[in-house]
């Protein structure tokens, strides 16, 4: 008997840098490293503009993941860690970024990053991350005014979706599109708790439901669940979704349907919002230090 060992949950890791920019022309080189429970991102900014980043899976060791993400972001840029003026660590593993000058929560960083990515009108940010879900309300400067974090279980998170992709043997990157390819929207699975939803999905498959229909029911349940979080912090129409799940059209479309709103779109990668925010904080902290010295 052959065993199917394909890793359907595995998403593509990548790095990027702007080849048109000479980083040495900049005045402040700042960096943000977001070590999440599932993925890690490192961002390098030159005077507040995105210059380089990486996005990879978090390993079992947070300091090592932070180092790897940073090294990968710096690859082929001609920059070394020592060239960076200030680094802020954020995310679940923020205190384990060995080369960071300061740690700032991912909530403050997502709000700050979201402000750059979607513009100053953005007021409500939903970060659907690897193992938690955060609803953030912020002001025009990207300062948090109301926050709520649900990290009690993996339901409605990237990890929950990965477990589902594996169960149904569907590539994580196809889940969203496949879930939308149903003739009629099925009722959501009754539980978003990953453990219960898994057994519910297995029995639906046995009853003859197609994989697409089961995926639709799960995406719908995930969307439904986060709506109540957003309700608690107060929804405003300039609303954006960050994190890995923002790339899952199946969840985003259903969420927009429930909210009767279209989420704002950005040219930036939604997964690097926290790291962008951290790099922006880092830049502001360098400026603050320099002002102090100049006095």
């Amino acid at each position, binding site marked *: 008997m052959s065993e199917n060992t394909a890793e359907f949950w595995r998403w593509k890791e990548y790095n990027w840098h702007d080849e048109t920019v000479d980083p040495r022309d900049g005045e402040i080189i700042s960096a943000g490293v977001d070590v999440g429970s599932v993925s890690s991102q490192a961002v390098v900014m030159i005077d507040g503009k995105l210059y380089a980043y990486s996005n990879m899976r978090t390993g079992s060791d947070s300091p090592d993941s932070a180092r790897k993400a940073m090294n990968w972001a710096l690859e082929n840029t001609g920059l070394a860690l020592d060239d960076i003026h200030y680094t802020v660590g954020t995310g679940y593993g923020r205190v384990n970024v060995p080369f960071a000058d300061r740690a*700032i*929560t991912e*909530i*403050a960083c997502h709000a700050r990053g979201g402000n750059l990515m979607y513009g100053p009108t953005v007021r409500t940010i939903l970060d659907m991350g690897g193992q938690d879900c955060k609803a953030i*309300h912020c002001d025009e400067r990207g*300062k*948090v*005014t*109301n*926050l*709520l*974090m*649900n*990290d*009690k*279980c993996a339901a409605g998170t990237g990890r929950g979706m990965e477990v589902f992709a594996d169960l149904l043997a569907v590539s994580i990157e196809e889940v969203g599109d496949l879930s939308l390819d149903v003739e009629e929207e099925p009722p959501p699975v009754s*539980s978003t*708790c990953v453990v219960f939803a898994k057994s519910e999905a297995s029995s639906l498959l046995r009853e003859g439901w197609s994989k697409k229909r089961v995926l639709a029911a799960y995406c719908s349940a995930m969307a439904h*669940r986060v709506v*109540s*979080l957003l309700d*608690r*912090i107060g929804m405003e129409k300039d609303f954006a979704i960050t994190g890995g799940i923002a790339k899952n059209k199946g969840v985003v479309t259903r969420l927009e349907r429930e909210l009767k709103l279209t989420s704002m779109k950005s040219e930036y990668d939604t997964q690097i919002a926290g790291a962008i925010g951290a790099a922006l*904080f880092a830049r502001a902290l360098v400026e603050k230090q320099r002002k102090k010295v100049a006095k």
Partner: protein
Amino acid sequence: MKANYGYLDGSGEFFITIDTDLCIECTDHGCVDACPLGLFEIIVDDYDDDVAAIKEEHRKKLKYDCAPCKPVSDRPPLPCVEACAPGAVTHSW
């Protein structure tokens, strides 16, 4: 900033909300001593202000931790709410 600590699960919503803008001017930090279980702590937040927060280890079990303060009938005022003169603390349940 309104910081909501707690969770939402199949049995309901259990959040303690702290309006941390009110903590900035607060000097006595009454919430910290008032809570019999020591759920509150004063932290330096991301914007460098001293504000109250619910300790990490209690955030996922508020329903149970706060239960002794919330009898089903004849519920007295909650110690944490009463001790906070600026009115920064509210409970969702």
